[in-house]
């Protein structure tokens, strides 16, 4: 039995973030009006500290608090990535938030709580813990979407997100309760053991898994549970869209690992089939509808759906190889989405959101460096070598073909071609369309443009040198399934 000390060391990043989030809340309450930079700086310190603590756990593994929290390589890699993505959000955001009067302590506190929720979703080893993390993340996100209370669009988006999210939580809970009924336990490891006696052709098990997967698919944004994504992405302030498109996706993927791969390894055929359907629907809807969008945020929202389709392909493969490639894909996608929304954020000004594709017309003449970065981002999303988007798609397709799903792979590649159309259209608009006459002045934002440069160049470098990250993902998911 691990000692009490063990429990604490295993859970220390989560505890640190929780304590610091409360501290930031209090500090902001008393001194926030005098020094507005206090909360953001403290938040950055919190995340850096969390990254340090997570890294310090490298090599450790085990469970704490009676299996409530798990520590394994996956926990560490996934937590590091959500921390890094949250840090990116913080670094992108200051100017954008200031210009909209949102540069306030509660934003950062909510972000920290959302991060905490993501981390618990990643490390949770019990259905209840996982659900707790999920709701913590979701509630923070509802509030973050509705940050601009005077903007009817944002409020509408938040309300829709809330209603649909509550429904999805209900589906997930129903599925979980069926699992509990089947096995008599909420613990992931014990569920896995209990299912040995149940058998994969069990009627109730199938139903439980359908409901669980529906709940996860909602969080991931897989069709047909994707309806909230375009509205929420478009309505939310771009900073929050940036957050929603990145860290929570990694957290939602963690649910796949915890509940399905670890908890329901015996029923792999069932959830494989569900994900086949989800992948086909997501690829089709995401790519086809994106073509019709003139709003870049909406387009990127549908691109999220299609990317979730691609990452589902790795899950469909149904082995450690496929899950590792899906994990790689979700990390890569989060980086790409961060850069894509970061670009919108960078080009937005007070009272103006650069969210229409037409706003990018002639960008190459006005800001060649930004245009080049956007080119890298779009190429990466389209999967053009040597960007990292290509390697990610390649990894997923490889796992899929090895698992024998050749027709599905062919379909996915065709959909990738359709996808290339709308990504490359942005590039065409940037480079070949004339600058509109009433084009608004571009803002200067040293911090965000530096972060964006690093973020986009990383897409290129990771594509040229894919080995390290790919190996890390495979290491993280070794032995799962």
């Amino acid at each position, binding site marked *: 039995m691990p000692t009490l000390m063990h429990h604490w060391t295993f859970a220390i990043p989560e505890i640190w973030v929780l304590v610091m989030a409360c501290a930031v809340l209090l500090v902001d309450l008393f001194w926030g009006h005098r020094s507005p930079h206090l909360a953001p700086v403290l938040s950055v310190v919190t995340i850096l500290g969390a990254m340090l603590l997570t890294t310090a756990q490298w090599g450790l593994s085990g469970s704490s608090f009676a299996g409530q929290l798990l520590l394994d390589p996956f926990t560490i890699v996934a937590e590091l990535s959500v921390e890094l993505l949250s840090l990116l959000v913080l670094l992108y955001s200051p100017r954008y938030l200031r210009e909209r009067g949102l540069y306030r302590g509660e934003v950062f506190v909510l972000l920290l709580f959302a991060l905490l929720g993501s981390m618990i979703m990643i490390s949770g080893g019990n259905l209840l813990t996982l659900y707790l993390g999920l709701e913590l993340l979701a509630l923070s996100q509802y509030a973050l979407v509705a940050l601009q209370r005077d903007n009817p669009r944002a409020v509408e988006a938040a309300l829709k997100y809330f209603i649909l999210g509550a429904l999805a939580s209900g589906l997930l809970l129903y599925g979980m309760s069926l699992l509990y009924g089947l096995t008599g336990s909420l613990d992931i490891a014990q569920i896995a053991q209990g299912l040995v006696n149940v058998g994969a052709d069990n009627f109730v098990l199938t139903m439980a898994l359908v409901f669980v997967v529906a709940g996860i698919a909602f969080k991931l944004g897989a069709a047909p549970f994707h*309806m909230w994504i375009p509205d929420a992405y478009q309505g939310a302030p771009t900073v929050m869209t940036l957050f929603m498109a990145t860290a929570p996706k990694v957290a939602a993927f963690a649910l796949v690992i915890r509940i399905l791969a670890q908890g329901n390894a015996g029923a792999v055929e069932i959830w494989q089939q569900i994900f086949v359907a989800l992948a086909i629907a997501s690829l089709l809807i995401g790519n086809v*509808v994106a073509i019709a969008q003139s709003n870049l945020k909406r387009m990127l929202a549908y691109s999220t759906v299609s990317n979730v389709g691609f990452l589902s392909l790795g899950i469909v493969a149904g082995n450690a190889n496929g899950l590792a490639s899906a994990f790689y894909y979700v990390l890569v996608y989060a980086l790409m989405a961060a850069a894509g929304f970061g670009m919108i954020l960078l080009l937005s000004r007070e009272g103006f959101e650069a969210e229409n594709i037409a706003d990018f017309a002639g960008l190459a003449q006005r800001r060649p460096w930004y245009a080049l970065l956007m080119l890298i981002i779009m190429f990466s999303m389209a999967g053009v070598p040597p960007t990292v988007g290509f390697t990610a798609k390649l990894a997923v397709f*490889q796992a899929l073909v090895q698992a024998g799903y050749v027709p599905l792979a062919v379909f996915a590649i065709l959909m990738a071609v359709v996808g290339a159309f709308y990504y490359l259209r942005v590039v065409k608009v940037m480079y070949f369309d004339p600058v509109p006459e009433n084009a608004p002045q571009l803002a200067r934002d040293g911090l965000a443009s530096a972060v964006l440069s690093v973020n986009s160049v990383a897409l290129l470098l990771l594509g040229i040198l894919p080995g390290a990250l790919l190996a890390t993902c495979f290491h993280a998911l070794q032995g799962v399934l």
Partner: protein
Amino acid sequence: MADWLWLIPGFPLLGALINAGFGQWLGVPMVKRLAALMPLLSSVVILVIWLEHATHPELVDRVWTWMAVGSFVAEIGLRIDAVSLVMVSIAAFAGFLIHLYSQQFLAGDYGERRYYFYLNLFVGGMLVLTMADNLLLLYLGWETVGLCSYALVAHWYRQKKNAWAGRKAFVVTRIGDTTFAIGIFLLFAQYHTLDIHRLLQMISGQPVPSVLLAASVLVLIGALAKSAQFPLHLWLPDSMAGPSTVSALIHAATMVTAGVYLSIRLLPLFAAVPGMLWVIALLGAWTAFFAASCGLAQVDIKRVLAYSTISQLGYMFLAVGIGAPALGLFHLLVHACFKALLFMAAGAVISIYAEDHDIRHMGGLKNQQPLLRWTFLAGISALAAVPLISAGFYSKDAIIDASWLAPHGALLYALALAAALMTAAYAFRLYFLVFEGEPRVGEPYQLGWGMKIPLLILAVASIGIGWLQFPPGWPGPHLWLPWLRAELGPTPEPSGNLALVLETVGAAVTLVGIWLGYLAARWERQGRGLSRIGFLAHAWYVDAVALRFLPPVVYGGARFLRLGVEHLLFRSGILGGIREGLQWGGVGLVWGENGLVSRYVAFMGFGLLLLLLLLWGGL
């Protein structure tokens, strides 16, 4: 293992990178010096290899595994053996001399920075090409060289014809590039490796005749296009539109030798197809003959040299084809020296005559420019293969003599010998017209040391480098062929009385050719020269015929593809259907996503139901 081999191509590529990134801040003088320094540094590294590993060079540097997918491994691997050591020495050192010469020659030009960027990239690409240990990397260098040649030929792009010449060079060599790429695909599909050594081993181990035939023909077309062999030589005379230093670089140190190098490197591939080598030999001999005949009637100083390049490359292919690649490589080395010299000197001559290329307007330059005259004469002697004293005699006549021993050798020999006669004639016709005769004073032109040194070094090399390998049976050094024997195998050489006869005939033919050249120069001055023979002056009308008949066919085909296949079939038929379908599908789906929460919920519930039915139906 030698972990520092990457330095050799690394320096010029770094130079290009620095120029591209920071050239604006460094300023042109700095850029120029830096550009010249880079190939010098590469040459120093190569010199170290010569000092350390001259007797048996065999160095490998696996720089980096770019990607490994299943059985496919793309490596950046560099390899130095005897053949590539010679090649990189030429590319780096001759490249350096050309950089040095350019310092004064192109000073004040409107595209100097761009010029040095491409020059460095050119040398870097050539070094990658020659050192690559797999076909993928080789192809990368191959394409880099092609791109740079396009950019440099069109260097003075403000005149439209120069831009067109660049385009022609690019398009014609592109034919070869494409077939070469397809050849590589075929080889990979059959043998699953791109590593040159393993590929050649597997080819000899398990030959598949049909694949090898197709692949070798495709690769050969690539080599022929790059090395401007008949009938893909069309681009080379036009490539004279670039600055003379560029011609020197393209014709001597880089680019055109790539095709010869490729055929030497992949010799086992060609040897595995019966009769292939003989075809190569015949093509080479024919090209040598054809281009030499064209050279006789040219009046543009650079066009004479251009046809001489085609002709000399023909000799190299002839050598490869008769199973004497070592001699081909030898001639490649000698040719690089004297051709770089001749082009750079020709550049100076053109500058003296105020950009007039017509040799009929020149004359008597020997008193005005003694140094230029002597160095030019050294290069011309090597080109004409003046017996005993010039390097060309030792390399070219060895090839001609060896061709006698090949099957149907008489035909090859006759073509090669006739070409040699004409070569001597046009070479000395050029010399006599420009440097002898009554003086026609041009502009005063002072050769700086940056121009003199390269000319002197290359002149010494054009005379002396042939002494590496004396003809068989002669007393004196025999270094070259034994050095390469381990790698390229034994070289056929005539011996005894036959050798004596062949050598005498060769020398006599050359001397007769020089005499004819003298006469030709005199006729030309009297206004009844060979240049009036339109058939030769227009290069047998090959270019004219090709331009008359090929474009309509190609454009017709293109129009058919555009209207018939692209518009009708693809755009309207297939893509149109898909696009319309996607568009309507998109509209339909967008209609579904209209923002009503109730509909969203219904959609979700519907999806859930569908999933359940699917799963239950599937069980």
